[in-house]
């Protein structure tokens, strides 16, 4: 089986002229000398693909790549049987490995991946973890109730739950006017965009942490959800007590429907990993963890995207739109949008072109 004479297809050859084949005393060296032109051609193409993707590769080279790869792979398997030249064997092993990553690892470009992600991949991943979403939702509701009940029984809990920078004027016993003021609007949009950027950065960080903690069997993710929602429950108690329940709900709903949804998904994705590691079913733990981790990663990419939107909503419409109806409309519209997108939008799966 003589290697195809691919070298002649190309004008330039970076390969230095090899020694005369007939001068080699060993059969295995002659075998190598006959084929090393193709190997080096392959190495050259692979090297350029590693440097800059497919842009630096001409069409002919791209067509030749699979053939050259198979030549090298078959050379390796023949050489293992016939040659004792350790240097050539290790060269071929390294070359076949490198070429393998490029030939069988045609990665999607970022934009192709992103398109698939937006047009179905994300919502499919969310639906796939529906059970975890339900559990996380239950935990979040329970956390809110717990927060409310704790503070209702003993107001000291309020100071334990709410971090210092929130408890400015929003403390038990504050007047209705003081509380109303915190729900008010800003007069102008000055500095609100900085607020949006830092909100995004902070919230996305918390969501990523909630996801990452899922690795410890999901328990810390749930604790994080409970803690955050208890805070919300305590605040609700405060505002409802001052007869501002509807206003508070409107104020919260503007960004809350998006942000709380994102936190819900992040917690659910973390829980999904933890759950599949604790109960891997008929797969091995490692396989189950990898499958759920990749699914969770898709959800998380979406969560970061939702946090961007939530940050923008929190900074601009919430601080600028003052009416209860206006706030409810914005928040409600986003909630409807997310629910539709995740659960009603079900495009057919686009097959990966391998």
């Amino acid at each position, binding site marked *: 089986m003589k290697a195809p004479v691919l070298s002649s297809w190309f004008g330039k050859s970076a390969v230095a002229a*090899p*020694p005369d084949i007939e*001068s*080699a*005393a*060993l*059969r*295995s*060296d002659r075998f*190598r*000398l006959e084929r090393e032109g193709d190997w*080096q051609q392959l190495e050259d193409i692979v090297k350029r*693909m*590693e440097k800059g993707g497919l842009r630096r590769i001409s069409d002919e080279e791209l067509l030749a790549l699979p053939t050259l790869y198979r030549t090298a*792979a*078959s050379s390796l*398997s*023949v050489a293992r*049987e*016939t040659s*004792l*030249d*350790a*240097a*050539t064997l*290790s*060269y071929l*092993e390294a*070359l*076949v490995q*490198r070429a*393998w*990553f490029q030939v*069988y*690892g*045609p*990665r999607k470009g970022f934009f192709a991946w992103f398109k698939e992600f937006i047009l179905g991949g994300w919502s499919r991943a969310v639906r796939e973890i529906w059970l975890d979403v339900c559990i996380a939702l239950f935990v979040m509701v329970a956390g809110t109730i717990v927060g409310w009940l704790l503070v209702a029984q003993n107001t000291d809990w309020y100071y334990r739950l709410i971090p210092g920078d929130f408890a400015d004027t929003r403390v038990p016993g504050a007047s209705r006017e003081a509380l109303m003021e915190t729900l008010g609007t800003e007069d102008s949009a*000055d*500095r609100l*965009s*900085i607020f949006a*950027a830092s909100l*995004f*950065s902070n919230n*996305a*960080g918390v969501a*990523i942490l909630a996801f*990452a903690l899922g*690795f410890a069997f999901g328990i810390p993710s749930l604790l994080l959800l409970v803690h955050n929602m208890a805070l919300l429950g305590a605040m609700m108690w405060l505002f409802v007590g001052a007869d501002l329940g509807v206003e508070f709900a409107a104020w919260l709903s503007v960004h809350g429907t998006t942000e709380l949804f994102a936190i819900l998904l992040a917690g659910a994705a973390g829980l999904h990993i933890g759950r599949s590691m604790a109960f891997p079913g008929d797969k091995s733990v*490692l396989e189950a*963890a*990898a*499958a759920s*981790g*990749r699914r*969770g*990663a898709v959800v*998380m*990419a979406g969560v*970061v995207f939702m946090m961007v939107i939530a940050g923008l909503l929190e900074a601009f419409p919430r601080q600028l739109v003052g009416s209860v109806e206006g706030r409810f409309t914005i928040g409600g519209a986003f909630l409807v949008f997310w629910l539709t997108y995740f659960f009603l939008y079900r495009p057919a799966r686009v097959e990966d072109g391998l």
Partner: protein
Amino acid sequence: MSAAVSLRGLTNRPKQERYLVTPEGIEIPIMLASKGSRLGALILDFLFFFLVIYAVVYLVIFVAGGAADTFASDSIEGASGALEFLTILFILFLFFMRYGYFMAMELGPRSATWGKRIVGIRVAARDGGRLTPEAVIARNLLRDIELFMPLVFIMLAPGGEWGSYGVAGAVWFAIFMFFPFFNKDNLRAGDIIAGTWVVEAPRTKLAETMSTSGAAASSGSSTVTGAKYEFGEAELSVYGEHELQVLERLLREDKDEALGPVHETICRKIGWDPGAGDERAFLEAFYAQLRAKLEGDMRFGKRKANKHA
């Protein structure tokens, strides 16, 4: 194409070697990256990370100073607008550096960050399939609990500010940090949930053929004495493949002073009288003829692993 040789059974393969079976049925050995090289890559990445952040901070300060100067005479609002824009850019930049640097680099065609490239390692899918964007995202989202949180806790816990909560947190996060030490594939937590591992990315150059020059060539003879070494069947059956490859390494290394003792050992073993001055030609000829014999036997399915076999 001949049937694949299984490498798994062979005893002389390194412990950190794993196998990848291509669709052609060929086993390719891949080496797991050592913990040391991964740590080195991480340190290098952090170095780049901080260098870039410092560079951007200085740039921002420089531009901010410029903006303040330009707008000071016109209006205060103009200046604050420009500064606000810079602040937003800076916040977003920090976020994307923290979460995006590793992801963006590992999504590239080499599947490696700059630090990994320098030490010669890369990320690969553990099942031998392709490395998907999901896997890269998953393995890097866990960096938070493996690296940033443990470091925060370890730095703050001894201060006692957080009390026993801080110490407990530090211990707990340390488990994630030292995860690669607790499994045989050096997987960190992110590798586990992404189904990836980190392997060496070899860059082996094709070495010279051995039997085309010097005394190893078919018509070769010693350049010093002009003698042509010929070895008999009995003399060549003393050694096996292991010794052949040691000899190959020695000849390729090109260190003449190391040849003497080897020459002497071989001569004594095959019952020749060791001379001096022509060691290289002797060893080249011995290498070529030993390899010809062993490869000839190999074609008939007879292999001799080493001199004891």
